[in-house]
């Protein structure tokens, strides 16, 4: 197994006769990876396989060359944030982190110092000695993140880490994820909120019915879906002119004027050819173009195409 990637080879997990995930083969690289899928699709099972909390019924899992069965080596490099509000009874923010670091074998003084650093990183210094049971939902999410991060792991597996955070908290957390990814870590984030995944992740893994339906950079995934024409939104001063010229191209299947009166939505079977022709169309028609945007190169749209459920799965 490759010591530089997180790999699953034909990994399956069955709970008796119930399918968790089926024959998953994946190679995850450093950066922010979004794991998306509806409830019961197998996201959490996949995360549990990566963190060794579940053993595959079949196949192999390797995290940077370490088999998940080797808890001592695995959890030196992996930090896991569960989706549940689960804390030992009576724990304070500080004791929660100190305890985790002690389990990692850090001496008391080192664990204390590191705990305070992590509390500062997630903005909980003032609440360090309060019981977690009294924390708000957002604070609990942040202490869980600090808990996953405190031993400085290279791989972070975060199950629904943005749940319950207010917009400001979400923005702070997303910024933190991006910083962690920029350090060369593997940050694997599961979420139901597709547009958020779309905005922050370098790559996505789409899971449905226990199987991976697509993985990779979202643009590349979208390019692979040849059955669905690609949508391009052109915002300009005379959208009718662009629409008229677009109709003359063989690969364009639809040109629709948008209600705002300043845009046209083109659906084409050959995006590269369309982009190549667009320059000529602009010059020939003399329109002033404001923006040209791919309209369905998003996790949301791709997910809808692949699973047949347009919109945000919840």
């Amino acid at each position, binding site marked *: 197994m490759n010591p530089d990637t997180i790999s699953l080879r034909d990994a399956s997990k069955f709970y008796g006769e119930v399918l968790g995930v089926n024959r998953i083969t994946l190679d995850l690289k450093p950066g922010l990876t979004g794991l998306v899928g509806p409830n019961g699709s197998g996201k959490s099972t996949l995360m549990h396989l990566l963190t060794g*909390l*579940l053993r595959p019924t079949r196949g192999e899992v390797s995290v940077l060359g370490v088999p998940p069965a080797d*808890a001592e080596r695995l959890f030196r*490099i992996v930090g896991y944030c569960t989706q549940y509000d689960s804390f*030992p*009874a009576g724990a304070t923010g500080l*004791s929660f982190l100190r305890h*985790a670091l*002690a389990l990692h074998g850090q001496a008391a003084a080192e664990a204390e110092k590191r705990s305070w650093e992590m509390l500062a990183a997630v903005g909980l210094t003032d609440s360090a000695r309060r019981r977690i049971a009294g924390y708000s939902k957002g604070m609990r999410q942040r202490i869980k993140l600090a808990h996953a991060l405190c031993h*400085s792991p290279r791989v972070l597996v975060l199950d629904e880490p943005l749940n319950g955070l207010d917009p400001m908290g979400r923005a702070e957390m997303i910024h933190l994820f991006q910083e962690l990814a920029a350090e060369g870590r593997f940050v694997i984030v599961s979420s139901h909120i597709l547009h958020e995944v779309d905005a922050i992740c370098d790559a996505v893994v789409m899971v449905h019915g226990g199987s991976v339906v697509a993985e990779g950079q979202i643009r590349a995934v979208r390019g692979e879906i040849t059955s669905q024409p690609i949508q391009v939104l052109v915002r300009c001063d005379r959208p009718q002119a662009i629409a008229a010229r677009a109709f003359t191209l063989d690969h364009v299947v639809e040109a629709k004027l948008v209600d705002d009166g300043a845009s046209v939505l083109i659906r084409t079977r050959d995006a590269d050819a369309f982009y190549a022709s667009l320059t000529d169309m602009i010059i020939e028609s003399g329109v002033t173009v404001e923006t040209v945007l791919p309209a369905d190169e998003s996790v949301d749209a791709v997910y809808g195409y692949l699973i047949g459920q347009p919109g945000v799965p919840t």
Partner: protein
Amino acid sequence: MAVYERAWRPYAGAVTPVRGRFLVVTRYALAEAFSSRLFTAFYAACFLPSLLGLFLIYISHNLGLLEQLGLTRELMGGLTLTFFRILFLWQAVPAFFLMAILAPSLIAPDLANSALPLYLSRPIDRRDYVLGKLAVLFLVVSPPTWVMGLALFLLQASEEGAGWGLRNWRIALAYVVGHLVWIVVISLLGLAISAWVRFRPAALGALFALLFVLSAFGSAINGITGTSIGDVAHLIRAIASVVQHLFGAPTSSGMPVLVNWCTLAAVALLSVLVLYRKLRAHEVVR
């Protein structure tokens, strides 16, 4: 495509040995247990039988004090097998309540709060987790039971002079082995029940109920069959008989001591199996 520099640095400091890492679980659980004043007060009370024993041993060897109290050396000279057997019982009963209170509070809250994945996503496994919790019970229950018992035995041996300790070695054996068996069996049973029911008060009730139900079941079988076969399921009698045998006294069970040992081993093994089944990082709801 994003470009990432490898700026991440792992923790490079010293770490404690892996083998003793389960003691971290123990340390935090101990701190949590003794954060209750009521529990601490009860724990202190569990030492009273031993302190009374200490007083009796002291007074029986202090001729001056005996004279002042109008007592004779003969009256207090009977600190032999019976004295130590009664003291054992006085230590074992509060120790049982100690374990019955403590054991359910060790695992049930973690399971009820779904906190197990937090432990198991650290460099410890289920065995370390159970070992850590068992160590709490061992460390808490040992001082007022076998540690104090052994100390009293040694004190009595030193006061009585050479030969007493050698002649009565079974007392020391009974205190150490008897209490350890008591601690292991009741601790495992308590932890297993709390892993099963996941609710502290219910676990406490279930532990008492199980002991009484098993004992009543055993007695009923004995009554119906007119034999001692029901003692196989009589947990309290099994422990009592094992301890009596260790003291070299006649046993109260109608079954051979080996059968009593097997009963205790079976209860311990079943408890371990329940813990193995119930303590999982991840629960599947079908």
